[in-house]
């Protein structure tokens, strides 16, 4: 019993929880900034720049503005971090089994991705700044715009997994019984990304990444040049450090969700420490590939859209793509 509790605590705080996510997430952001700089023909910051920023912000003075909701203002930075760390518990990183798994886990993941955005909203609305208020209202509009396609993508993946398992004649076929492990198991012979009916859903999920992670062209929430970092404006010192850490961890988390939903599985079948480490590195590499194509390349080459253009985009292209995929999967084509 004690061993189980210790193991879960290790999962929560070290691997694949807080520490692991923090290091990988910050390196993701650092590599992102370096590649963007090279694409724009700059030298760019070193790839450990986010670590320097984090250490710097931890020693800076912490200012609480007058008129801020003090309780919420100090709690808000933790919401995103807690949300994504719990979400990561459901994801098998280079292992056969995720630390936590339950029936309907994909619905919990959906909820936790939104919870991470709620953290930013709470932070902004607690800080009593008009810029933050504008940022929060934009974040809400964006979340409402892309959440619909996100829900349809999640449903598509679960229904597809249920269909495959039903054909194979094993396991639960009821949708709500679907856990992340069974979604991974359904892709044992063929990952969903190789299935042409799932490609539209995959593209829709990739299109959601820039808005979800606050990257150009849909970084309307944090738009530095118009609403000066939006919800982050009043934060300083360690709370700003935690907010930035949270968004870096979220980048790794969301990319991991895509990896698990569309191309999970390790590179080696070898068990033991070496095999596990190889599989973990393989998972990180796949997550980084997702971040590179959907985040880095897109944000290096496109300028910021307005909020109405962003909402229009999310209510048309990703929504239509995800509905196409859902229709194809429901019709059992392919």
């Amino acid at each position, binding site marked *: 019993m004690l061993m189980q509790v210790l193991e879960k605590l290790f999962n929560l705080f070290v691997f694949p929880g807080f520490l692991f996510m923090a290091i990988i997430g910050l390196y993701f952001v650092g590599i992102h*900034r370096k590649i963007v*700089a090279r694409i*724009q*023909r*700059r*030298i*760019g*910051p*070193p790839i450990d*720049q986010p*670590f*320097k*920023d984090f*250490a*710097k912000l931890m*020693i*800076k*003075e*912490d*200012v609480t503005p007058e008129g801020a909701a003090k309780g919420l203002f100090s709690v808000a930075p933790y919401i995103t971090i807690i949300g994504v760390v719990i979400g990561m518990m459901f994801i098998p990183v280079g292992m056969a089994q995720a630390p936590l798994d339950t029936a309907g886990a994909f619905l919990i993941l959906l909820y936790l991705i939104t919870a991470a955005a709620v953290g930013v909203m709470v932070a902004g609305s607690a800080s009593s700044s008009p810029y933050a208020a504008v940022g929060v209202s934009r974040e809400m509009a964006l979340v409402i715009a892309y959440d619909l396609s996100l829900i349809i993508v999640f449903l598509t993946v679960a229904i597809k997994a249920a269909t495959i398992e039903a054909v194979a004649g094993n396991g639960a076929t009821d949708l709500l019984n679907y856990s992340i492990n069974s979604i991974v198991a359904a892709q044992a012979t063929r990952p969903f990304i190789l299935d042409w009916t799932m490609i539209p859903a995959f593209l829709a999920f990739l299109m959601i990444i820039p808005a979800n992670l606050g990257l150009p062209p849909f970084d309307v929430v944090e738009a*530095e*040049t118009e609403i*000066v*970092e939006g919800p*982050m*404006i*009043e*934060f*300083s*010192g360690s709370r*700003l450090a935690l907010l930035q850490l949270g968004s870096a961890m979220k980048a790794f988390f969301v990319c991991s969700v895509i990896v698990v939903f569309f191309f999970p599985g390790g590179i080696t079948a070898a068990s033991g420490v070496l095999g596990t480490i190889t599989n973990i590195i393989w998972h990180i590499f796949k997550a980084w590939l997702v971040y590179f194509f959907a985040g880095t390349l897109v944000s290096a080459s496109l300028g910021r859209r307005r909020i109405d253009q962003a909402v229009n985009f999310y209510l048309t292209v990703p929504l239509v793509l995800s509905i196409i995929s859902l229709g194809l999967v429901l019709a059992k084509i392919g």
Partner: protein
Amino acid sequence: MLGVLKKPLSKMIAGSPWVYRMNTGSCNGCDVELATVALCPRYDTSRFGVKLSGSPKHADIVVITGPMTIRCKDAAYRIFSQIPEPKVVMTVGNCPISGNVFQDSYAIDPPISKHFPVDVSVAGCPPSPWAILDGFVKCIEIWEKRVAEQLD
């Protein structure tokens, strides 16, 4: 324990100076040299870890241009007090040093060092981008010392 870590830690932290620009009545000549030449991708200050921040609450290095006109004095004091410690102050141009061509005007109150603790002054009307970059490098050296003091 901390004594051993102090040096690498302060070196690491010194690699992340975020810059906030404050215009206290400048004629925009220095702002053009500063924001659109010295901080542009051509000279790429982000290789030192410099990031332009829009909010004074994120700032480490405050860059002040202009001779401090009477009208913006209150606002300048208010913004300056919002910048969290430790911080480094740099002025760009001749106006913050002496008032330059506006000397003895009733509408200005130079020098800036009378109001805020200035660490680095870059002279010139306007100063060249290389001078401003040199100022940044000097600021980062001072910033490293401030950080080490903070860690004590």
